[in-house]
């Protein structure tokens, strides 16, 4: 960072210290720091990006070398948004700037971005660990992601109450106790710990940010929308924020993308790689002038979902029918580009085509998940054509039923190959990529309620699904500190047509038993669409296991609390 700043005078007379570096002819990135930081928080990120872009950062009023207002009203978020535009006008009067904000820097940038008058000055906005206060206010009041998540956020926001009490936080900072706590919080999320260069002034003045704005915005939020493209980047181990309070902004933004990366609240300082990569991709896409994705959603659909999956890339295997297809549609409706994979190429193409109506940019590929080489090739192709996926759904599976004594080697081979090796291959092909890209991704494996409900009826099938469940749980443990979450889905009886395609050992292809089982599935009446909604809603919270239907929930509970009952049930031969 150049040590001698240029001073820009704000509309109320405060003087803001502005630092410029990087290529002079390139698009301008305007970096806005948070609390209790100053412009040096961006050192590592600026180093990563200065060979491609012009980097401009400034000390927010009250911090670093900028002057501090005397009155609390000098810290109102409206004024902070005005400051951002004042700086943008000074450094790049002819060309809109790409804003990147962290923490409070993100909060004030959000405010500027959602001010219609400023829209033409801003080319894009990348928000790291900081929501729009009005959006957050709505989110807290309406709880679209559930009361549980609101409570989780309350725990993480408890410091706001502390900062709002007069005198005490000042004492904490001046005594050094606050510094110790902060240093501990900075270590959450792992990674190398870089000492921050902050002054006492940064700590003290910035408290006014909380006192001037929080209460008002949270209790009386207004509607703030924007046509500026926004990507929100959320660290997986943010001590102060859960995903949803950031991703819910999707409701208010025309072109919204949400990505996660492994790290803590300040990992942008110590490990800027993943954030830099996302900024590059985003800024280059906007600068290329390529038509931005337009989503064909009804107003109702748009209102229904936040942005937890918006702008993401998902690979779904077995996407040609059943749950895989329904999950693809559900994701596409929520703004995800879907790569539909199926052994039936026409079916995969059809899924991708319809997904493309909901979110443009979907694609398809024919692949036999049981073949490891094919899956490696698929992964390489996805990476080169579409980038690293945010979500991989290993869903492809087949049904095989019948007594063990009548199940031949061929049947075993087939069901193990598709159901178990399919998932192994999918995880092997994509997990390293997700880790390498900086974490934040998700792997979802379709197991089955049969994984924990033994029955003499579907031995081979249940065996493979139990293996998938354990594979998911172990992989989840392994990847937890790499920021990749693994979830196993256990559906239960979903009317997908799996029985039509199932092989019933010793019963032939067309049989009365099949007809009766089909009838049972039809009467159960749980559609793949309904299952997909549940699955995608659940995956947002990264659970270990998602039981879908009531029988799956019951089976899971019994397997834990009354395993004997299930063992007895395994002997029952249903009248098929």
């Amino acid at each position: 960072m150049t040590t001698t700043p240029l001073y820009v005078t704000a509309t109320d007379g405060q003087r803001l210290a502005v630092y410029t570096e990087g290529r002079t002819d390139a698009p301008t990135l305007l970096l806005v720091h948070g609390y209790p930081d100053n412009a040096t928080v961006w050192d590592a990120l600026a180093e990563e990006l200065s060979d491609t872009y012009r980097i401009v950062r400034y000390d927010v009023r009250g911090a670093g070398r900028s002057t501090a207002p005397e009155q609390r009203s000098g810290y109102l978020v409206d004024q902070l948004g005005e400051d951002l535009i004042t700086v943008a006008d000074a450094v790049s009067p002819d060309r809109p700037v790409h804003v990147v904000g962290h923490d409070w820097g993100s909060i004030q940038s959000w405010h500027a971005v959602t001010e219609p008058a400023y829209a033409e000055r801003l080319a894009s906005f990348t928000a790291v660990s900081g929501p729009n206060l009005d959006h957050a206010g709505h989110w807290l009041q309406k709880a679209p992601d559930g009361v549980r998540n609101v409570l989780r956020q309350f725990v993480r926001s408890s410091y706001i109450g502390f900062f709002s009490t007069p005198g005490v936080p000042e004492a904490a900072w001046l005594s050094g106790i606050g510094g110790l706590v902060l240093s501990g919080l900075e270590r959450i999320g792992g990674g190398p710990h870089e000492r921050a260069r902050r002054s006492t002034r940064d700590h003290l003045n910035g408290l006014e940010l909380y006192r001037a704005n929080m209460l008002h915005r949270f209790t009386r939020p207004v509607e703030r929308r924007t046509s500026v493209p926004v990507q929100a980047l959320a660290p997986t181990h943010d001590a102060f924020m859960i995903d949803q309070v950031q991703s819910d902004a999707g409701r208010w933004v025309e072109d919204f993308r949400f990505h996660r990366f492994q790290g803590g609240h300040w990992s942008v300082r110590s490990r800027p790689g993943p954030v830099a990569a996302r900024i590059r991709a985003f800024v280059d896409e906007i600068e290329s002038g390529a038509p931005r994705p337009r989503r064909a959603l009804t107003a109702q659909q748009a209102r229904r979902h936040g942005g937890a999956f918006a702008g993401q890339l998902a690979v779904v295997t077995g996407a040609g029918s059943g749950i895989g297809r329904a999950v693809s549609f559900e994701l596409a409706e929520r703004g995800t580009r879907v790569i539909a994979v199926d052994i039936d190429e026409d079916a995969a193409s059809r899924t991708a085509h319809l997904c493309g109506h909901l979110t443009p940019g979907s694609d398809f590929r024919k692949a036999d998940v049981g073949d490891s080489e094919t899956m490696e090739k698929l992964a390489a192709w996805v990476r080169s054509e579409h980038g690293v996926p945010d979500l991989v759904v290993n869903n492809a599976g087949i049904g095989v039923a019948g007594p063990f004594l009548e199940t031949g080697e061929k049947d075993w081979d087939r069901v193990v190959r598709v159901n178990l090796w399919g998932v192994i291959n999918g995880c092997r092909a994509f997990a390293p990529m997700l880790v390498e890209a900086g974490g934040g991704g998700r792997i979802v494996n379709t197991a089955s309620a049969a994984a924990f409900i033994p029955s003499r009826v579907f031995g081979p099938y249940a065996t493979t699904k139990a293996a998938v469940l354990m594979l998911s749980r172990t992989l989840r443990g392994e990847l937890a500190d790499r920021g990749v979450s693994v979830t196993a889905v256990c559906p239960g009886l979903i009317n997908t047509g799996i029985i039509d395609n199932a092989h019933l050992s010793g019963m032939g292809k067309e049989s009365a038993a099949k007809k009766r089982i089909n009838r049972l599935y039809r009467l159960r009446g749980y559609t793949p669409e309904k299952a997909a909604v549940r699955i995608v809603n659940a995956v947002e919270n990264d659970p270990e296991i998602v039981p879908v239907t009531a029988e799956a929930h019951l089976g899971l509970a019994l397997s834990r609390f009354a395993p004997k009952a299930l063992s007895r049930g395994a002997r029952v031969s249903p009248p098929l």
Partner: protein
Amino acid sequence: MSHTNVTAGTLPPGDLSGFRELQQLAHEAVETVAEGLEPGVTEREAARRIREHLTERGVQDWFHTPFAWFGDRTAFRRFRTPLQFFPTDRRLEEDMPFILDCAPVRDGFVADIGYSGYLGDNPLHDQLMDDLYAHRQLILDQVRAGDTLQDVYRGVDGLLREQGYDNRHQVYPGRVIAHQVGKVRSRLPRAIVAGFGIRSLQTLFGDLVVERLHNRSPLWADGEISAHPATPGMWAVEPHLGFRDMGVKFEEILVVTEDDAFWLDDDLPHVRRWERRAPTAAGTTQETR
């Protein structure tokens, strides 16, 4: 009662032209109303316009009163009671899909038609409409081949699943994809009960009783009672595809004779549309089969 007519086989040609004319008139009514729909208009208002258009042209009674569904109501999502079919105060918005459905009775002739459209721009709706073409073909082929109604129903189910859609005609009372219609001859007064004309209901119930004696049904669904080839007569067929928040259907009369079946009229808005878009429609059908 009308069932004699319906079950007795070949219909006199004079009768057919009466049905054809009324079906044309009904389509003309919904097309005219559809063209005039503006943002902000309610379902009730749209239904009222259809009713007005038809009564001005000699329609005296209804098999059922006109329906209008806007937006996600075209897909019948979260419909739990039949009352939810009736027009509401939902307002039409730009790019929103809609379905208009009416069943007028004139001089004893009955028509029952459905028309899907949208305001502004909606490529997804075009896609669904294109894909509906294959269903009209499939129904005709399977009925001609003498398949049971249950099998035709399941054939439609299979095709729409393959296309990536879900079956929305199962939301209609009785899960019906079609029902029989015939000439209304009744001495009951013209009255509407719960949206249905009582004279037409009398005809339908008469058919229900008589057909039940033959172990058949004038309602065409996927249950065991439909496990018989189409009964000669006239069937108002209404396959209804759903995708996410959108539903698309057509409804028109299929004539079934002792040894053949044909659509009463091919000069209808949706058929003309497919003909105009023939390359696309044919292409999509290829892709999905």
